[in-house]
């Protein structure tokens, strides 16, 4: 570690950034793989099934007690799933628009990963110059909203490229849904930033770091609810999974996709869920700060504990995402539009107004 100190600041910054990008990417991809497992397990349990409980490498059965238990829990299932995705036949139907067909999965997957760049996942690892966020942007939230809205292009392109009815309908639904809910989502966070007074996500966390009672979920419960529901809609999760809706659109926009291209859509969806959870944790649930209040860490251990808190909160929200899937049936298309435009946008606007008035009268 000593030799790093002698490098000039720019080189240090670049090195640390590359390290952070690699770490975040690795953690996010593992998170995606294991949230698929959690999804399968939780849905199985809710439906009175045991869920995936067979796959294991050959040596696991020789580990006493823990080995069979891990197998039963399906810990090795994501590896098998990943391997299977790579080995499956990548079939391109003859009638698709090839360029868009190849481009769409990447465009669907990349934005959700890019959103992770501005989310602070920890305070520091001892050195205050090195914040545990890939890009400490002053306009962090604007960046993330800009990127999130790009996510719709992947789905629309997939629907268009497939050149068949069901994916096309899925693409249309997705674009309408995402545009509608993005407005409500954006408006709900305005109130948060009125209170914080800064668009930088690190300062949002700084504002909440006093402990559980300081979290913005208490001061902005309405904004939290709207943001959360809009996040469900943005990530195409049930009860808002109209672009996919297996029962009516045969899988929607990714009907014609197979192998790794399909897996990319899947990864994109789960990465978007992780990003949305991370964003909710940052904005409303105190980010990396512990519920008992915490200052930016000045030791390695403290920093790791903060990262642990962040990951735990994100994981808890992911379970909420997954659980909700089995709780509510899918919305009808007109109900979805009604909810977005006629309920959430007025509510979010009223919330901004009330918050603004309160801030104007109490702020000196």
């Amino acid at each position, binding site marked *: 570690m000593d030799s790093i100190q002698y490098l000039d600041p720019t080189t240090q910054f670049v090195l640390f950034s590359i390290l952070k990008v690699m770490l975040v990417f690795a953690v996010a991809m593992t998170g995606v793989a294991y949230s698929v497992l959690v999804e399968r397990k*939780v849905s*199985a*349990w*809710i*439906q*009175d*099934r*045991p869920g995936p*409980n067979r796959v294991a490498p050959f040596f696991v059965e020789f580990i006493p007690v823990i080995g069979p238990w891990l197998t039963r829990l399906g810990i090795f299932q994501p590896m098998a799933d990943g391997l299977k995705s790579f080995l499956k036949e990548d079939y391109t139907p003859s009638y698709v628009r090839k360029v868009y067909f190849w481009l769409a999965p990447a465009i669907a997957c990349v934005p959700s990963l890019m959103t992770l760049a501005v989310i602070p996942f920890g305070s520091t690892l001892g050195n205050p110059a090195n914040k545990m966020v890939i890009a400490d942007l002053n306009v962090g939230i604007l960046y993330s909203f800009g990127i999130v809205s790009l996510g719709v292009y992947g789905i629309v392109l997939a629907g268009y490229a497939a050149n068949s009815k069901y994916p096309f309908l899925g693409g249309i639904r997705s674009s309408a849904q995402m545009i509608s809910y993005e407005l409500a989502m954006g408006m709900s966070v305005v109130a948060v930033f009125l209170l914080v007074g800064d668009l930088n996500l690190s300062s949002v966390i700084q504002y909440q770091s006093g402990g559980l009672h300081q979290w913005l979920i208490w001061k902005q419960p309405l904004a939290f609810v709207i943001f959360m529901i809009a996040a469900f809609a943005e990530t195409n999760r049930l009860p808002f999974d109209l672009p996919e809706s297996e029962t009516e659109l045969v899988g929607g926009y990714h009907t014609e996709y197979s192998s790794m291209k399909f897996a990319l859509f899947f990864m994109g969806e789960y990465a978007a869920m992780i990003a949305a959870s991370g964003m909710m944790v940052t904005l409303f649930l105190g980010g990396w700060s512990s519920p008992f209040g915490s200052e930016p860490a000045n030791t390695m251990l403290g920093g790791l504990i903060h990262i642990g808190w962040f990951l735990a909160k994100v994981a808890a929200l992911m379970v909420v995402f997954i*659980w*909700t899937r*089995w*709780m*509510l049936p899918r919305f009808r298309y007109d109900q979805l539009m009604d909810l977005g435009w006629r309920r959430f946008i007025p509510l979010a606007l009223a919330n901004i107004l009330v918050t603004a008035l309160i801030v104007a009268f109490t702020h000196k």
Partner: protein
Amino acid sequence: MSTKVVDRAPLTFYERTYLPAILGGIKVTSKHLFNTLVKGKAVTMEYPEQKWVVPDGYRGAPYLVKDQEGATKCVSCQLCEFVCPPKAIKITPPGPEGQTADRTNAEKMPKEFEINMLRCIFCGFCQEVCPEEAIFLQKDYSLTGLSREEMIYDKEKLLKLGGTHAGIQKWKHKLEEAQEQETFPVAKP
């Protein structure tokens, strides 16, 4: 044709907030989650480890059975071969100089008896037609093999799988019937 307009009460404000639906969803899902996870009440039967109880009268794979002395019951009459709708049974009779039966009351037994389990439709005609009660549909339903040849079960395998069947002893009953005929007319009580 008259139409009946169903009277639907408008939803109350509370119902329109979706809260009752969400709370009901939480209740139902958490109940099932708890039952499966904590009480272990999953409905899945984990097949290779747990097997279902085969009911009596189930028509599984047909196997040859031995009598109570362990001798081959089949006398190679070939009735089952002729009745078999998918022609799954193939019997090679012993011929004039062939091996004689390994039990009394019978003249011969098959030199070879093959059932192609890939062809068998488990109809039970063989069991029905057999005059010697030598073939029975048993409870096996999961027949597996790595090749088509492996799925043709020969006499040795069929006898081994079939086991001993001492339940119905036709010749004993026939003997009793014959003895009853000897004392005909039946002595009046």
